[in-house]
């Protein structure tokens, strides 16, 4: 009996392998390095791993062999772009995570217990968050390149489990943080179950778990359409949950609010890229020929998501909740790029994901700066007059809000224009009109925050602004520069995306 070793194509897997290796070393560091050295070692290790992964990714971008690990992974232009976006977002998010002030000294201790007090007094710093981040990033970069349903599910769990834990690590308001983590975990588990259920039906329909096999079955027709429809529906629920689309959005405001802000930043930006990346691949390649069955539903979801996200955001008094609802609205805008189902839609969605991700990290970075003696202040009323006390924080936050609102000369405008024109081109005029309408509604609450910061006088119990650490400052500055640069001169990136973004089926 002869045995042929499976062809793994290690070079295509190398970014993921680097990330997982870095994460495992991080676990060892937790075990063997002294407490005092850990923060510095972990930060260096994490940033080093991410940079190495980016460099390796850049080296393999033009590789000829396209599938790896016996066809379970596919590496094409969109895969490169999405992985690169996730890694870049991860790097600037780690700058924020580096400020350990945000994390509980001893997450295992009961909130308010003697044990916790001792941990705080001893100056304990939590560093497990670094390897958790790397594990999550590894799952995220795997998510959009998965080429069969099992790999997709493994990636989904790999990115979700560390995030559930990270959401519960907040130093302040620990009960809210733990509640957020539990809520995220339970609802996430539900959605995973839906996902698997859908995967089972798709297997029943096509007798295959590979994307290519399912696509062939759909193209060939002849299968049982009921199985296909149930499969598409439940798989979509699993994915829509991750991007926070209505009606699967209810976790996101609580989790955004409860999680430590650096984790919120990372989660909001990077998870969206990973999940939309996977959605793009599945809808653009696997389900493309069953377009008739999912575009109407997805269009409806997109419209409801945009409108509800923008409307509910108006009523929010907490900056993190407001950003959560704004991210729901943006999930709706991004869905219109998925619905477009054309090359322009693919390019636009990838551009939008990157631009939005960077601005999101920047916005949350500013949130981490606004504090009083008891920690971060997220009550919008206490942001009054921020422009006077900290022009840096207020101006950059205003810039990110303008980008979210899609004002010209920011990246958000180019993103919105390209994604809406792609949707319009595909004939989804209703989605575009709803998009324009909800942009107008959304503009209202973004501007309200700008008014609070600049045109309202500070109240007595005003907040102080932390002098930003160099890393936090760096992430704000990087995000601001990218946001403006992509608004003023987006041509290089747009061309780069247009040339690369072609799915290999």
């Amino acid at each position: 009996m002869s045995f042929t070793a499976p062809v793994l194509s290690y070079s295509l897997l190398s970014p993921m392998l680097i990330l997982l290796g870095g994460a495992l070393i991080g676990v060892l560091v937790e075990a063997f390095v002294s407490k005092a050295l850990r923060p510095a070692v972990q930060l260096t290790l994490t940033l080093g791993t991410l940079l190495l992964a980016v460099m390796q990714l850049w080296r393999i971008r033009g590789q000829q062999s396209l599938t790896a690990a016996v066809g379970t992974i596919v590496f094409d232009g969109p895969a490169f772009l999405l992985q690169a976006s996730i890694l870049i977002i991860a790097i600037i998010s780690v700058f924020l995570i580096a400020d350990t002030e945000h994390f509980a000294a001893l997450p295992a201790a009961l909130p308010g217990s003697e044990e916790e007090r001792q941990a705080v007094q001893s100056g304990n710093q939590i560093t497990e968050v670094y390897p958790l981040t790397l594990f999550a990033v590894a799952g995220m970069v795997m998510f959009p390149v998965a080429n069969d349903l099992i790999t997709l599910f493994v990636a989904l769990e790999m990115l979700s489990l560390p995030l559930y834990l990270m959401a519960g690590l907040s130093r302040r308001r620990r009960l809210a943080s733990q509640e957020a983590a539990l809520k995220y975990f339970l609802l996430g588990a539900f959605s995973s179950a839906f996902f698997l259920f859908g995967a089972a039906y798709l297997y029943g329909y096509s007798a295959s778990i590979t994307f290519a096999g399912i696509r062939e079955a759909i193209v060939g027709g002849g299968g049982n359409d009921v199985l296909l429809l149930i499969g598409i529906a439940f798989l979509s629920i699993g994915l829509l949950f991750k991007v926070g689309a209505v009606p699967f959005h209810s976790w996101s405001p609580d989790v955004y609010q409860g999680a430590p802000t650096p984790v919120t930043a990372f989660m909001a930006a990077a998870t969206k890229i990973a999940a939309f990346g996977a959605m793009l691949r599945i809808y653009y390649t696997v389900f493309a020929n069953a377009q008739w069955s999912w575009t109407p539903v997805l269009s409806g979801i997109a419209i409801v998501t945009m409108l509800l996200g923008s409307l509910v955001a108006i009523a929010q008094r907490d900056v993190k909740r407001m950003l959560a609802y704004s991210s729901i609205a943006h999930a709706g805008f991004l869905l219109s790029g998925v619905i477009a189902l054309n090359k322009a839609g693919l390019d636009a969605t990838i551009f939008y994901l990157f631009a939005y991700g960077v601005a999101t990290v920047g916005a949350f970075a500013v949130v981490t700066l606004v504090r009083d003696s008891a920690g971060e202040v997220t009550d919008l009323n206490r942001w009054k007059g921020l422009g006077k006390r900290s022009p840096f924080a207020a101006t950059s936050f205003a810039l990110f809000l303008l980008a979210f609102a899609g004002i010209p000369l920011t990246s958000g405008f180019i993103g919105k224009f390209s994604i809406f024109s792609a949707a319009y081109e595909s004939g989804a005029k209703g989605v575009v009109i709803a998009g324009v309408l909800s942009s107008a509604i959304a503009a209202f609450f973004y501007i309200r925050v700008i008014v609070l910061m600049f045109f309202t006088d500070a109240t007595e119990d005003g907040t102080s602004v932390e002098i930003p650490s160099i890393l936090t400052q760096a992430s704000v500055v990087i995000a601001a520069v990218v946001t403006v640069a992509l608004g003023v001169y987006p041509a290089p990136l747009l061309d780069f995306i247009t040339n690369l973004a072609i799915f290999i089926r």
Partner: protein
Amino acid sequence: MKWLTLLMLLPLAGAAVIAVLPKGNEKAAKQSALVTTLVVMTATIAMAVGFQRDNVDLQFVEKYSWIPSFGINYALGVDAIALVLILMSTILAPVVVLAGWNEAHGGRWSVKTFYILILVLETMMIGVFAATDVFLFYVIFEAMLIPVYFLIGGYGSGERSAAAVKFLIYSLVGGLLMLASIIALYVMSGAQGGHTFDINKLSQLQMSSMTQNLLFLGFFIAFAIKAPVWPFHTWLPDAAQSATPGTSVLLLGVLDKVGTFGMIRYCLTLFPEASKTFTPVILILAVISIVYGAFLAISAKDIKRLIAYTSISHFGFITMGIFAMTSQGQSGAILYMFNHGFSTAALFLVAGWMISRRGSSTIADFGGLQRVAPVLAWTFFLAGLSSLALPGLSSFVSEFLVLVGTFTRYPVHAIIATFGIVLAALYILIPVQKALHGPTTPGNENLKDLNLREKLAIAPVIAIIVVLGFYPSPLLKVINPAATHVISQMGFTDPAPTNGGK
């Protein structure tokens, strides 16, 4: 020579200089702003000299690829209409800086920031008229809201932040409607020979009349909010009341013109059929604006609101002239845009000085100003006369042309609009009587008259109003070919006079 880019870069350079000035050096900031705006004005005049007035094509054309994957270009060029408006904007800028020498002091932020915002705004004012790529136009159209928003909210008075927000929300909603239309144009251009935003190519698109009507509305509503035409006008009085006088001049004198300019450049050129379809409705809106604005002005108690209301009436005239579809109406509307800039500037600046001296903007508080500060009172009177279009002052020529141009095609509208002139006499002469004449109101005895700086600032404005009142033909010679060109492009010829004309 790349004139238009140069004009746009100069104010930015000035803003950069101000930004690096040492903190607290307010005088230097003001002086740099004044020098910059004067240089821009001189450069604009130098450019205008080289304009070929019989050539109806775009001149001083520049074009660079900006976002090639969407077919977007950085494309500039001016026809006579744009040239006249750029000229108006760049002449008003130094006037505003000089006249409002001290108006930045009551602001939330530094004097430096104020002048940086003004200069950035000047760049965008030039760009918005010079853009010949629809995308570029939209970008500037929207981006210029931001400096104005901060100018009103940061340096205004009274309910300034509420007014700033109202202004921004109204404009953004209009802008987004226009964005939807622009996306539709872009997609259609892609289906008909390649994605483009070139205004000339877009005007040749084939589209069904239903599509054309919808897209027209997207553009028109955005411009009607900007202009503003009744019933989209409610943001203007609040904004004008709260803004500093200088900002109000730029807001009403220049920014609102983007609305009427857009009607000519975009609505008429891109959607000629839809423009004809909607003409009856728009003319009615214009007539309502004229009469309703005038009535609001008559009942106004606040001097800044009064001026804002008169502008609503005037924008009604401009809109009527544009949609009368005759070359006289068109020339009159374009000339009106230019003249309105200066007559409003005169009114607002003088009113601003009156308010800062008296500490109140209520008209009734200014009794007997004539005796205390004669020069101030005379300037206000003259500005008012220009606003009511007294023969011999510049607005008369344009208002007359608009009415004549409208009468040949829509006599009823023209006759109703003529009542606007009568009402104008009321809304100007009543405040003049209340504020300038009669016994001196207690507290007004020591109001100072205009100082040399203020006289220097207002003199060129008054000079333009008077000179163009008696001798408008240099400007008309530039405007007329462009106006005739617009009308003939639309497929209209002027109706023959029914009587006489032998």
